[in-house]
């Protein structure tokens, strides 16, 4: 669905993204994991042309994005920001309906789509339809942000640290409702995060990034149990026990004991 070939992006003298290539299959949830400054957000922004690469090529759905009008491309790609970016002068209903309106949907279709999404994201329309963004809590605002990104049924959804600004309890709740959305089943998602826990929870494939390059990619199990080198091994070290414990069937005692021994050894 998304094909990225030899992308490079420099800011001044700093190479934010350094000759990166990867593919994301249709319906796949790809998570780019890395510390801040690893280039993952830059990479994400190039997929909907918020940033233009210095060199390399990106295709979405088989079409080179450089050949498309950026506005049209963006209307077919949902985008969720860490800082949400709701339009403060639009009601919740107008915020969610913004892309369908740009696409010229008729008013009734927009209204029913908005109602539908608000129901699914636990924002009772009767209560919140006419509310303003500043009247909502952080978690509610991010639910609106998700709804806005999904409103026009985009085949691709880009998410930049979407739950990063929320407190842990709210984050878990929003993430849960997000995962249960049926529209996501066919949607190709590229999500950027520095939260290992989140990456493992949401990813089909994880792309571990460092210094503008992909260090290792694969399923969560591959990254956890077969790290390709020093950086991937160290990256998960902190949370290894918890991650492994979650991934091991609860009656596989030998594996559990191995994991625990490993954990104890590391803690010294």
């Amino acid at each position: 669905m998304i094909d990225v070939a030899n992308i490079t992006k420099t800011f001044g003298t700093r190479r934010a993204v350094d000759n990166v290539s990867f593919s994301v299959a249709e319906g796949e949830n790809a998570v780019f994991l890395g510390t801040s400054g690893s280039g993952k957000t830059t990479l994400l922004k190039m997929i909907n042309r918020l940033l233009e690469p210095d060199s390399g090529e990106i295709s979405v759905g088989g079409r080179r994005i450089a050949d498309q009008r950026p506005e049209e491309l963006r209307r077919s790609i949902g985008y969720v920001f860490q800082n949400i970016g709701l339009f403060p002068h639009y009601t919740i209903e107008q915020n969610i309906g913004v892309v369908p309106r740009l696409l010229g949907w008729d008013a009734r279709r927009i209204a029913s789509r908005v109602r539908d999404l608000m129901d699914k994201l636990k924002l009772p329309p009767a209560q919140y339809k006419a509310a303003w963004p500043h009247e909502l809590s952080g978690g509610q605002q991010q639910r609106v942000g998700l709804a806005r990104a999904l409103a026009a049924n985009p085949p691709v959804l880009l998410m930049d640290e979407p739950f990063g600004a929320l407190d842990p309890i709210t984050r878990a709740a929003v993430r849960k409702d997000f995962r249960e959305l049926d529209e996501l089943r066919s949607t190709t998602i590229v999500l950027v995060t520095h939260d290992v826990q989140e990456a493992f929870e949401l990813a089909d494939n994880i792309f571990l990034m460092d210094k503008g390059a992909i260090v290792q990619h694969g399923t969560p199990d591959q990254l956890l149990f077969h790290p390709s080198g020093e950086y991937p091994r160290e990256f998960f070290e902190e949370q290894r026990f918890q991650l492994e414990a979650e991934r091991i069937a609860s009656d596989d005692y030998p594996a559990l004991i191995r994991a625990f021994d490993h954990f104890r050894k590391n803690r010294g």
Partner: protein
Amino acid sequence: MEQAGSFWEFVHAQSGKLLQQTVQHIGLTFISLLIAVLIGLPLGIYITRHRRAAGFVLGIAGVLQTIPSIALLGFMIPLLGIGPLPAITALFLYALLPVIRNTYTGIDGVDPGVREAAVAVGMTATQRLFRIDLVLAFPVIMAGIRTATVINVGVATLAAYIAAGGLGEFIFGGIALDNTTMILAGAIPAALLAILLDFLLSLLQHTAAAKRRTVIRLLPVLLLVLSSLYVLPVGYGSRLLAGFTPEFMGRKDGDIGLRTVYGLRIRTVVISDAVMYKAIFNRKLDVISGYSTDGRLQAYDLMALTDDKKIFPPYYAAPVVRKDVLERYPQLAPALDLLAGQIDDSVMTALNYQVEYLHEQPAKCAHDFLVSRGLYRSPRAGNKGLVRLGSKIFPEQYILTEMYAELIRGYTDLGVDSKTGLGGTQICFEALVNDQIDCYPEYTGTALLAILHPPAAEEARLAGSRDSVYQYVRRAFDQRYDLEWLAPIGFNNAYALMMRRSQARQLNIRTISDLTDYLKNDKL
């Protein structure tokens, strides 16, 4: 109470004029504001996208803002002449900075996250501008427009100086005539206008976000309607155009006298005397009010029309001195009297011409004159006391004061302290009465009409007679203020109507009656 009564009387009597001026004032304010918004708003938007140009554009607009308004109007005259065009241009330049700056800071202040989101959802540049940037920056931009409006209401009063109308006509007429009622009749409506417009625009500024796009669409229409209120100052239709100072417009021995005594009907604009001469010289005006000894009469080849019905009272200049000073320094009066009868109209005009037009120093001009008349003596000790000389703020007074200073130094043992440039009549007179100065040159007509205010019957009896006016003011000053009028210097700096010599000759106009007759027979 009396003041308030006379204020309402004045407003009632002049309501037509007041209304016309107010409407002109609103029109002037908004026509320039409209242009400022049409140019400033796109410029402000442009510099949010081209940061490098921002400093330059804001810098230029800022510099324009620091030019004193009178000076800016002055710069406009050689370029654009007189009338509405230079006034609107100057006002527009003043309104520009707040509009550009607030557009820039307003859009700049929109949350970058929101602006990025607008890009990410697929809005085009135009959609982002009209749906996001302008709507969210609206309160800040409106604050800029409010500032510009209030500035314009204030500066527009100066439009009266260059024949563009507005409430300044009353304000500057009132200042010139020392007529508080008249000043207030212009100043109060101007202040109320500023407050009212500020209030109305504050309502717009705080429009709820949802309705802002409607306001953004309606605002240009509103500005256009208000701008159209500006209609040119129209008077009687006549081929010749007169430009009178605000002072002249309000005086009995001015425009009022011309209309009642002569029956003069001429299309008239109000204009400051600083630009009036240039305007008549450049054929923008045909008739102006002026002073009969003004040096510019000679410089611009103008001719004073004879006042054949004697509506302009005589304005003979003479030194006015505190009596206690004359008693303390007996040498003083003879020294001052040396100038009596020495300077007639044409000599004074020539002296004024040297200073005003040839830019000679008043001191040098005074010195050369005294030498040529054999009156000059080199200074003596100057240690027996000090005489404080005052003067009003125009060249003729400077020249006279310099002559008196040289005479006092040469013929007495007194020192001289010159306090020149004391504004108008009222300031000089108050300074003299309150013992801040000892002597200044005053004019009989001014003393009669601006200081003494005699009853109408008395004024009629004195009218036109040089000696009776002099005797009257001399006696009154002596009795009321303990001030002494010494002998007149000789010239009569009275009001006069002036025309270009060439045109007056061509139309065969020599007197004001000739002018009146010409206009009667030459209706458009």
